[in-house]
């Protein structure tokens, strides 16, 4: 049985980004009237009908700003969000800067149209149920450090790191990217990942997504430059893979490299990152000591 589909925009009326979120949802509904439009204001009153529909549905949320009201409304109900759309990321993707006016201008409407098409694509793609692409990583030889009861791993070869603790593993003109064991342990249990859109061009040290753990939200800072050509969709259903296998099944994205030789100048290889990570572990320990934790 196919689940019903719900779309929940944040509707933030006091910010243009919220107004765009609303417009996007209206555009989607216009093109695809079978989707249930959820009004966040009514939902917030605890409307019984909404609560029942949401429990049985695939949920798409559209947030205008980092207050992420739409996401919070769903999180509060302990329901799972199948896809989040975040207007600032979309604005970057489509290179359209909407104005700040609460009455949308031409760019605001144009952005809302583009995002709606993106959402409709996502919905159609989900219907096709494309198999999840996995990447074969094979055996990895590690440097290992044991601190207190924690074991930290750094691959000896093939992986390069930036000082924001993200890795890149080039192979030909493509490369996988993810986060290091240090960052994964530092974050704690990862409960949600937000991956970038396919086709997005990232420069080295741009952010290429976020992830949320039980402790915090962290930004992924790209070790390489290029175009996103694959995303690890499995993480949307199983974000814990990042904790379990951060150098393998927990990869985040794949990019088509632009100029890895240039990227490499500002990266560390495994043998260089390993002592750097050990120093960071020690600094974290000192920070905790200072705080008296």
């Amino acid at each position, binding site marked *: 049985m196919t689940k019903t589909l719900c779309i929940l925009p944040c509707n933030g009326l006091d*910010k243009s980004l919220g107004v765009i979120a609303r417009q996007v949802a209206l555009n989607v509904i216009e093109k695809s009237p079978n989707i249930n439009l959820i009004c966040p204001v009514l939902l917030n009153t605890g409307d019984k009908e909404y609560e029942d529909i949401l429990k049985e549905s695939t949920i798409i949320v559209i947030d205008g*700003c*980092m*207050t992420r009201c739409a996401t919070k409304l769903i999180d509060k109900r302990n329901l799972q969000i199948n896809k989040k759309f975040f207007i*600032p990321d979309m604005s970057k993707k489509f290179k359209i800067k909407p104005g*700040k006016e609460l009455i949308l201008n031409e760019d605001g409407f144009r952005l809302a149209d583009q995002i709606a098409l993106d959402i409709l694509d996502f919905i159609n793609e989900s219907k096709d149920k494309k198999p999840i692409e996995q990447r074969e990583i094979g055996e990895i030889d590690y440097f290992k450090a044991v601190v207190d009861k924690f074991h930290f791993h750094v691959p000896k070869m093939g992986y390069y790191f930036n*000082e*924001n603790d993200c890795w890149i593993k080039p192979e030909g003109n493509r490369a996988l990217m993810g986060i290091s064991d240090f960052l994964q342990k530092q974050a704690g249990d990862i409960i949600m990942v937000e991956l970038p859109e396919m086709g997005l061009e990232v*420069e*080295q*040290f*741009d*952010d290429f997504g*976020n992830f949320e753990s039980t402790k*915090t*939200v*962290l*930004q992924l*800072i790209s070790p390489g430059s290029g175009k996103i050509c694959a995303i690890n969709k499995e993480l949307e259903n199983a974000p814990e893979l990042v904790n379990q296998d951060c150098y393998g099944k927990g990869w985040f994205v794949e990019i088509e490299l632009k100029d890895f030789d240039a990227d490499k*100048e*500002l990266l560390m290889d495994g043998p260089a990152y390993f002592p750097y990570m050990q120093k960071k572990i*020690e*600094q974290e320990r*000192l*920070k905790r*000591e*200072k705080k008296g934790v």
Partner: protein
Amino acid sequence: MSESYDANSETFMGVPRTEIPWWPTIDYSKCNFCMECDKFCPHGVYERRENEEKQLIIKNPYNCVVFCRACAKTCPVDALSFPDKREIIALIKNIRDQSESK
């Protein structure tokens, strides 16, 4: 006894952190002191000053993670800005080249 922690002794990409001007700037003409950025930032970059006109300041700029702009995304009124990433990369490269040629 172990050495005590000192954020100012940190380096980033081999360059003393204190030589890298990366931290958020608050546009006080926009900021409404909602404190979302401070609530978000786990590194203690901001500090609240309840009884002052500027109720939020950048207290520990060098605690800011170079290239992280996550707090700016929390800002509902777009009052936070960061330096140009490319300029910072060029600066880091420059300082590294200089210290290598010494």
